[in-house]
């Protein structure tokens, strides 16, 4: 499976408070999370996520376990996230809701075209192709199913 989009480059240690602030959590309305995603970092960022690939620094998604952070990004239309490392809860949450996240170190500029290849386990951006760490077999299975809920439902007798 190949995923493509334009890069949105972010720094290291992007925490879940910055992805979606605590003040917007008291709702089940996903539209509210999409409306306020990255608000405290750059209010214009949310509208640039549709069809984009986030290319970030180390430790993406650190901080709170709030799954709303991953949901907000997915609902905003984000295609995938590439970072050298992720906070483990965020990483699991993303796969569980069917948002592709891969560990790799790639350097590019916002707007560059990015191709994430989930068969070859590479990311091509800014004209260079770098290897990324393959997801574990279990996580690949979850991602292919579209997330843990779908995986669960498909397994039910």
């Amino acid at each position, binding site marked *: 499976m190949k995923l493509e989009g334009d890069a949105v480059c972010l720094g290291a240690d992007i925490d879940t408070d910055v992805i979606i602030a605590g003040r917007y959590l008291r709702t089940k309305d996903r539209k509210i999370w999409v409306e306020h995603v990255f608000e*405290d970092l750059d209010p214009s960022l949310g509208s640039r996520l549709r069809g984009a690939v986030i290319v970030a620094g180390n430790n993406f998604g650190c901080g709170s376990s709030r799954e709303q952070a991953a949901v907000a990004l997915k609902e905003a239309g984000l295609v995938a996230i590439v970072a050298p490392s992720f*906070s483990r809860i965020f990483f699991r949450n993303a796969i569980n809701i069917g948002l592709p996240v891969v560990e790799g170190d790639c350097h590019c500029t916002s707007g560059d075209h990015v191709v994430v290849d989930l068969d070859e386990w590479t990311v091509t951006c800014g004209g260079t192709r770098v290897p990324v760490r393959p997801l574990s077999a279990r996580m690949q299975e979850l991602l292919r199913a579209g997330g843990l*809920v779908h995986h669960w439902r498909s397994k039910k007798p």
Partner: protein
Amino acid sequence: MSTLSERVLGAGAGDYVDANVDRAYVHDGTGVLTLEAWKEMGCPGPAHPERLYILFDHIVPANNSTTAMLQRELRVFARSHGIHFSDIGGGVCHQLMGEGEVLPGEVVVGADSHSCTLGAFGAFATGVGATDMAAVWASGETWFRVPETIAVRLSGSFNGAAEAKDLALAVISKLGMDGASYKALEYIGEGTKLLSMEGRLTIANLATEAGAKTGLFYADDVTREYLLRFGHRVENQVPEPCTYVGEVRIDIGDLEPVVAVPPRVDTVKPVSSLEGLQLDQVFVGTCTNGRFEDLQRFSSIVKGKKVKVRTIVVPSSAEVLRKAADTGVLSSIIAAGCTIGTPGCGPCLGAHMGVISEGEVCLSTANRNFTNRMGIGGSIYLASVATAAASALAGVLTVPELVP
């Protein structure tokens, strides 16, 4: 020859395991999404309701009708399925699980990143997201990749005004915010023996701020005595030789009071280097430092004096509040001019009360100082209870004296 994580999970580092979950808990914040995912899964009922807990702490009492409605749904769900339930004012989930619920050797998951707190009992305790938790409700199991372990080797004992919080911040400062990513921390060495259970909970609580999956103490005499108060007889866990992927050494006697400077928990500086910093609010509480021992230390410093800056004290559980009331600790704190909040998270997450304004500085005993966490444009400095008490009295950041 295993690390404690390997022993509890029954497999070697790097292996994937399907683990039976002994206790699983959510709070009013993460419970909402868990319930949504659960409904989508379409299960008739939880596999083991007696192992599940729903504990309200994040926005308590409810601040508006949306919150009230979300809480109502969870409350009804808990009651109709026979799930352990703690309503508003019961206390912070991690504290409640530490009041005799979690035992050494158990596998514990919480839908909150600070679930690592319970590693203080020698359990494998870690945070998961809402969808993972819904699957735990459904099956009673979850999967883990058994983490590699970094040893935090402790020697010596406190001999100044430093306390467990300063030790925890020192560890994060050495490791960095992602220095222990995907790994477990194991606190070992002679220095662990003199740490109280409360202190261990504070230290394990902050493991996640270094990116760790969990932070574990081996159950020993201190653990045994603590759990005996709740009627549990447990055995010590004896460390065996094992392989660590890294080691951090700390001589507790060398520690001094420190603060974590916003917006990073790993920017740790001596309080003395920032002494005199003007404060607008002091907040004492949370799953890090809202325990009885903390309130007692705070009251011993402010007793008979008056705070010079608005100070909010939130006991981490109803039991802590009751004890503080029974022992006079609470009245000293009130007499010093502090205000008391409902047991729970209080202002920690900036969602409903104790929010700071743009340009304001809060000295907090919590565990996160991220941008805007307690209010847009405000800054949060993290410190120990003694530093918070001394600073509340002075109105500016102040090095605490040795508590008598």
